[in-house]
């Protein structure tokens, strides 16, 4: 980020370093949410619908993991991806891929726990109909996830918010390398430590604006969906 320029100036002139940072932030966080959703939504639905012995315990732990400290996740992923670690041969440390992994791990419990609650609430209503229609386990999961889609959009937004806002994990596993692993939040951290406080604040406002845009897009999608299919 060029020093001495305000964030507004960077936005208005579409400064290339700002654009690349925004693009990377969105790519990392959105990819992390997608990865976490592919695992977390079916997992949450499965827990909601299956009876098994330690179910209550699993739910308690899952809910607790929503507050997983990002620095711990960052450290664990760092140790795993380090060349001296078990997955070192992948060479993913200090790349965007490592950041996606760390954020996906942070977002997964949020998506799974919120999905579990949403599906469980819906299941109470739907149970008899599914039994009467003789719907199998897989069919139930798919139908409930689809019917719960509007509530799940909110869960996805919560997950995205968590990913887009965090800095502790990605600065450890990404290294905040300019042009490669520097995102909005890590850039803000850097400008703060350089004492460029107004620039840091300005970037923060840009980040919040992006969050609002994403939230608005989700709201529009929900509105359109409701109008089409109730």
């Amino acid at each position, binding site marked *: 980020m060029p020093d001495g320029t305000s964030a507004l100036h960077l936005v208005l002139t579409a400064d290339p370093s700002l654009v690349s940072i925004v693009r990377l932030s969105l790519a990392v966080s959105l990819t992390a949410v997608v990865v976490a959703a592919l695992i977390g939504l079916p997992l949450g639905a499965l827990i909601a619908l299956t009876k098994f012995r330690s179910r209550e315990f699993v739910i308690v732990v899952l809910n607790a993991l929503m507050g997983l400290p990002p620095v711990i996740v960052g450290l664990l992923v760092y140790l795993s991806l380090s060349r001296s670690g078990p997955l070192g041969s992948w060479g993913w440390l200090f790349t965007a891929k490592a950041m996606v992994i760390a954020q996906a791990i942070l977002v997964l419990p949020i998506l799974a726990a919120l999905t579990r609650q949403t599906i469980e609430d819906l299941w109470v209503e739907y149970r008899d*109909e599914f*039994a009467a*229609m*003789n719907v199998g386990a897989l069919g139930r999961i798919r139908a409930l996830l689809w019917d719960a889609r509007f509530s799940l959009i909110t869960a996805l937004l919560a997950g995205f918010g968590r990913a887009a806002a965090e800095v502790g994990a990605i600065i450890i596993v990404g290294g905040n390398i300019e042009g490669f692993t520097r995102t909005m939040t890590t850039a803000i951290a850097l400008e703060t430590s350089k004492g460029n406080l107004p620039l840091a604040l300005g970037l923060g406002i840009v980040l919040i604006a992006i969050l609002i845009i994403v939230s608005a897009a989700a709201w529009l999608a929900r509105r359109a969906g409701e109008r089409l299919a109730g």
Partner: protein
Amino acid sequence: MPSDLPICLSQVSVHIKHHVLLHGINLDLTRGSPTVLVGPNGSGKTTLLRVAMGLLTPTSGRITWNGQEIAEPVGRAFMFQRPVMLRRTVRANICYALGAAGVPRSKRNDRASELLASVGLEGLADRPARHLSGGERQRLSLARALAKDPTVLFLDEPTASLDPAATQSIEQLLLAASERGVKVVMSTHDLHEARRLAGDVVLLHRGTIIEAAPAAKFFTEPSTELARRFLAGDLLL
């Protein structure tokens, strides 16, 4: 497909915690004209329907479907008093039921159109199901139940909150299904409806069967005192 009939309940009781919902139920549901369950609120009509459908396991006693102790609900369908609309269009709701019944994807659309036409909802095919009125929801629920091509059709108060026109169209559908060979087993509040539809009547009170008889006999010469009082309009306490 192999039929679930006859459905035989023998000494069936249902207790939930200390609450007795049904006790000493002996009933056979066989092929033929509709069986209608009547009785005051809380008499166990809904519970009996659910047990016969297989949604509820009796606390004691025995129930068999065509001699089987356990039978997947492939050939029987249930229409709930307050049906749940899937969050999609009317047509998609039916297609979903067709899919669950094993109908191949290529045939679903046509069959859905037929079912929609039979319940008079073809004009609302693309409307979100949650936007339907009470009567329209009942009709969609019936279409979903019929999607299975069932041999036994259970209905829990199918016309309870419907206006006369909607009631008439549902009743006609049920009679038509019965004529096609579907065994209709339903509960109702409305004695007149029972008169219109029943082949056999079963009167329930406080969880037991007071009297079970062919409709003609039940309405003209009930054999129990309670049945007489019920037909006379007394509140059975």
